[in-house]
């Protein structure tokens, strides 16, 4: 789907333009860019606590972005990471409220459940594509909304916590909490898990037959088919894995940050992660860097809003512009006509 060119030609240029645009946004809001950037970077990187919070945001973006990259590499547009993340979190939250085994085992089970939940959500779209040639773009998008409705229904009914005031499940029992890395912050080992998954993916993409087949069905579907690659199996498997990784993201938010499932668990991580995956050039290691950059934007945006009066939403405009700019600089190969909606 995408031709890889020098990384600097794409992401670095887009980021530079984005920084200029942020400065313009600050000027428009009547704030000196110097103060604005000081607030942005100070809020995101000024001290251990700020950095820890930035890394929390980084983790929440990194996992869905890695999942998206896997699907995109296979030429599959997974724009359903938001829903997959939600279902993953839902599974982890529902089980976490009752599961009370020894700590490491509980955590492992909850994350695995997140993977399964998100994976099922991705697999539905994969199966629809393999079976009916239904566009995964539309199905993953629609499934986001089905996931949101399902979550709303479950937390307001069957899974509702008797103690909670809002729409959330009962808290995850302490044995299911992810160990904290930096005391007094919300930073847990989730960041290490995410980075480990990034390295594992890099290995898969560059060193395994499966990774090669993924790229083959994405870049040359006709050739892949003639070479005997099972397109149907690869399609649903790729989307299942993609959703699974996003689902782990949801599970880490539940077990590491909120300690319960809440329908407001994601402020759109699954959509921002598309931008992260693109900025990282679909390369797992660069995606880690990109996720950190976006993590700075997300957590610094809050600080900027508080101290420099630049609304946080300005950040979304910038993120969208980065996506457009980056995508425009790329040569995008046309997909096979059969892949049309």
């Amino acid at each position: 789907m995408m031709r890889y060119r020098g990384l600097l030609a794409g992401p670095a240029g887009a980021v530079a333009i984005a920084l200029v645009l942020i400065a313009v946004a600050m000027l428009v809001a009547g704030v000196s860019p110097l103060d604005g950037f000081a607030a942005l970077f100070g809020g995101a990187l000024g001290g251990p606590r700020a950095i820890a919070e930035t890394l929390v945001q980084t983790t929440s973006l990194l996992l869905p972005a890695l999942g998206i990259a896997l699907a995109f590499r296979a030429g599959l547009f997974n724009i359903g990471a938001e829903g997959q993340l939600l279902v993953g979190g839902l599974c982890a939250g529902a089980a976490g409220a009752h599961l009370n085994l020894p700590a490491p085992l509980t955590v492992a089970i909850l994350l695995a459940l997140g993977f399964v939940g998100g994976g099922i959500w991705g697999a539905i779209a994969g199966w629809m594509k393999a079976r009916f040639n239904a566009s995964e773009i539309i199905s993953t998008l629609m499934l986001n909304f089905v996931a949101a409705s399902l979550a709303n229904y479950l937390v307001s009914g069957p899974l509702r916590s008797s103690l909670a005031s809002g729409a959330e499940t009962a808290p995850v029992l302490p044995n299911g909490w992810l160990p904290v890395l930096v005391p007094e912050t919300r930073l847990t080992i989730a960041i290490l898990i995410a980075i480990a998954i990034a390295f594992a993916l890099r290995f898969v993409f560059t060193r395994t037959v499966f990774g090669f087949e993924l790229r083959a069905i994405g870049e040359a579907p006709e050739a892949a088919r003639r070479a005997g690659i099972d397109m149907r199996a690869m399609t649903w498997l790729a989307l299942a894995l993609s959703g699974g990784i996003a689902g782990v993201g949801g599970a880490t938010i539940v077990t590491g940050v909120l300690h319960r499932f809440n329908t407001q668990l994601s402020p759109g991580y699954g959509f921002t992660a598309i931008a992260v995956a693109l900025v990282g050039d679909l390369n797992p290691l660069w995606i880690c860097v990109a996720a950190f950059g976006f993590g700075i934007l997300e957590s610094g945006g809050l600080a900027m809003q508080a101290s420099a009066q630049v609304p946080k939403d300005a950040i979304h405009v910038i993120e969208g512009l980065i996506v457009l700019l980056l995508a425009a600089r790329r040569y995008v190969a046309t997909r096979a006509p059969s892949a049309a909606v």
Partner: protein
Amino acid sequence: MNGGFALLLTLVTLTLVKATPIVYAALGGVLSERAGVINIGLEGMMAIGAFAAVVASNVSGSAIVGLLAGIAAGALFGFILGLAATKFKVDQIVAGTGINLIASGAAAYGLVLIFNQPGASPQVNALGNGYWVLVVFALVCTLGISWLLYRTPWGLRVRACGENPGAVKSAGLDPLRLRLIAVVCSGALAGLGGAFLSIGEVNLYSDGMTAGRGFIALAAVIFGRWTPWGATGAAIFFGFFEALQFVLQGRVAWLPSDAMQALPYLAALFALGGLIGKVRAPASDGVPY
């Protein structure tokens, strides 16, 4: 019996009102997809249309000016998407995602910048009862676009762009230009739908006002098999369920409202899966040319 009749009347009128913004956006979706561009950005275009309508109405004091501004803002974002998808050969899905981020962010940012209050705008002059004109006009638009697509040379060319842009090129026409025009019209219609939400149904803009209607419109396009009347029918069907939620609030315990909210999306999924008749998208829908 009388109460029942009143309820039915409420349901019918509410259905039409709730369907109207979706109808406009879905018609936009039909135009753009028949030309071969998938417009994922409908949601963002609706949001920016709704926001621009409120700003213009606030500045000018006239709801009509607001309406026109909503259409213009939608068209502008349509132009950005169209340019990205044609001249710059950006992947349409990626570009549409970017558009949605920009539009929702810009509207939220604009609330703070222009009205100095986050979350919602102050109240502005709205269309009042005049919004019924827009409800009827949505059906007129369906008729008009249907005629355009199937009864005029321009419509034939647009449809040809969606099926086989190469053939259009061979005929000496510029498929990219046709696509661009179709996407601009698509944005204008989505902007109109957004304006209906903000200064038709109510008299202000609030964050998250579009609430996924742009995506429901996308579902209506598929459910309606890429035809204007089909999409409008699907939009009315979805509007009916939205209205039903209001009317049945608290009356029917066994059907959770969340299930109703998921319905349009489930319907689209089933339509995609071919469980509701055979669906075939334009052959070059979503393929850059």
